[in-house]
């Protein structure tokens, strides 16, 4: 079977310091892949390279029929890049919710402006997603007043509203307290199990390993140390 994501020879350096060197990886449909490793080895950078949030110097990333490659002209091929991003929204460690918009508007902005959904449809869908993450009662609140766990749920709803094929999660539990960490993993599991591909980067795999279908340990420069399939 064709892999959903195929990474070939991906290399990235900052100021001549290599962060990722010659990474090769294939990820199948609906895999829940946890990439674990100590802080500072370039895990987050790797995840960001996958949708060209950080440009890379060598190699390529294929997502379905779309291909990102080293040093591509991001102006000319912004359509391709945007399509990849739509397919695989990124969940940030610190959530990056839009501070000037209500919870509801955070969720509807992407569908309305990027997918051109009509406002009523976008709103109904957003309310349904907020209900599923247990935050429909906060629809009119601003992110500044939410707890970390609540912010993460809004971020998940915002990503899911784009009807994605995959989610990229950067340290999804690290800025949450221990109880909330467990709760968050349950939410993720409930929402996406067996419908979405997920790439989760974390340095504290303990919380999230239980929902993984595949666990990769990364060493310095994102070298793959072990690759274990589960279930």
């Amino acid at each position, binding site marked *: 079977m064709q892999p959903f994501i195929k990474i070939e020879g991906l290399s990235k350096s900052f100021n001549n310091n290599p962060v990722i060197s010659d990474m090769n990886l294939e990820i199948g449909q609906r895999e829940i892949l946890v990439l674990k490793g100590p802080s500072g080895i370039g895990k987050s950078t790797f995840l960001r390279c996958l949708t060209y949030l950080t440009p890379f110097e060598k190699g390529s990333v294929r997502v379905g029929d779309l291909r990102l490659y080293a040093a591509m002209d991001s102006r000319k091929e912004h359509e391709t890049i945007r399509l990849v991003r739509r397919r695989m929204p990124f969940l940030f460690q610190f959530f990056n919710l839009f501070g000037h918009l209500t919870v509801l508007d955070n969720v509807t902005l992407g569908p309305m402006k990027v997918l051109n959904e009509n406002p009523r449809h976008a709103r109904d869908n957003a309310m349904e997603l907020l209900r599923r993450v247990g935050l429909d009662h906060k629809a009119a609140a601003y992110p500044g*007043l939410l707890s970390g766990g609540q912010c993460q749920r809004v971020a998940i709803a915002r990503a899911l509203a784009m009807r994605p094929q995959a989610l990229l999660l950067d340290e999804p539990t690290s800025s949450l307290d221990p109880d909330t960490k467990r709760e968050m993993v349950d939410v993720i599991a409930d929402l996406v199990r067996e419908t979405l591909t997920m790439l989760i980067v974390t340095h504290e795999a303990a919380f999230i390993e239980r929902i993984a279908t595949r666990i990769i340990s990364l060493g310095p420069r994102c070298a793959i140390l072990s690759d274990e399939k589960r279930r």
Partner: protein
Amino acid sequence: MKKITIIISILLWPAVIFADEAWDTVRAENELRWGADVNGGAPYVFCDPEDPKRIIGFEVDIVNAIARRLNVKARLVIVPWDQLVPALLRGDYDVVFNGLEVTKDRFATIDFTIPYYIFSEQITVRRGEDRFNLLKDLRGYKVGVLSASLAQRIIEQDAHITAVPYPSPVEVYKDLEIGRVDAAFQDFPIASWYVTPSPKLKNVGSPVGEGIYAAGVRKDSPVLEEKLNEAIKDLISSGELESIFRNWNLWTDRQHELKERAALSTRVFAAKAPLGKYIPLLLKGALITIAISFLAMVLAVAAGFVLCMGKLYGGSAARFICNVYIEIMRGTPLLIQLYLLYYGLPNLGIQLNALAAAVLGIGLNYAAYEAEIYRAGILSVPAGQDEAALSLGMTRSQSMRYVIIPQALRTIFPPSTNDFIALFKDTSLVSIITVSELTRVYSQAATTTYRFLELGLMTAFLYFLMSYPLSVLSSRMEKRQYAAIHQN
């Protein structure tokens, strides 16, 4: 600071009110301090073009001749023309010799010596122009005059002639040459000095109206006034005055009347000028101020946004150009920029009308400040906000429009309002390019009536009335944004 100013004013106050007879000071110091403006002052009092450190002029010759007769030295104190009388009252010097016309309004505040020159007003046109000979020929046309002069009052008596007031006589002729006005109307000595050698201009028609120049003294100096009168009488009867005027090519037959006039007092009935008629003029000036401010703000916002985008996201060439523009606009005075736009560009064949030059000058200047405010505002939005927008598949411009700018506005609003209040007050600078905005109207009214205090307070109050709503609006919007984001 304020306290110190108040204390100093209180200390100086009695000195001004109970000033000693000026003649005592002149004798004690052995020095006659006299006030004049050298800026655009030819042929009265001006810097010798061949030796700019030397100050010459027919009034310099007259004062020196008088000082010789009084056995004292003459010392010139240079003050802007419209400040001559206030500075005299303040005691900066004891007498004004600077083409000061004797008018009723001026008599309300100061006294005059006997006249030393009888002048009329002169029409000047471009060479080749033959439509204008009499004042009434100018109906329907624009005529350049010196602000707050007898010439301006004569022109304004005819409702069909448009008077364009200038801060100094030279600009009147400059603008006449390039066609911004159709004719000039100025005191004969000025017209004689500037126009006779000009290849482009000529004086036409016979002189209009009559005015007299006399020296101005404070009302508390009757002895000095009397000493000056004796000296001037002696200059007239000895023929020295005539030779000075012949020297400067200013002698006219009318000057023979000086002898008879010397016998008469120059005193005329002095009444305080009524302020009522200036209120509508000030309001009209305020309207023009509002119009210029509004248009300049729109321009500053638009151009500032373009500059800011160029500096943040442009290529290296665009960044360079924007940087140079911002640095030059911020690094040079707005006043000079206005002069260049209005009086300088015509040398390159680009001629802007006064209002356009005012709006462009202020708008383009403030655009540089706005650009930096916008840039700071945009940079204050965390990078993660842009990344979050991009990671949903938004384009750069969508991210800018829906995510960055709405959040940057919170940072941009307060300094931007601040800037607009400053812009609003800076419109007073465009009075130098003949726009009759509020400050121009004020200074004209004040220099005619000498009621600086009342008119100054009225004008300041009008400015405040116009700028205060901006502050209120701004703090309302800030509060609303804050409330929206921090509500429960």
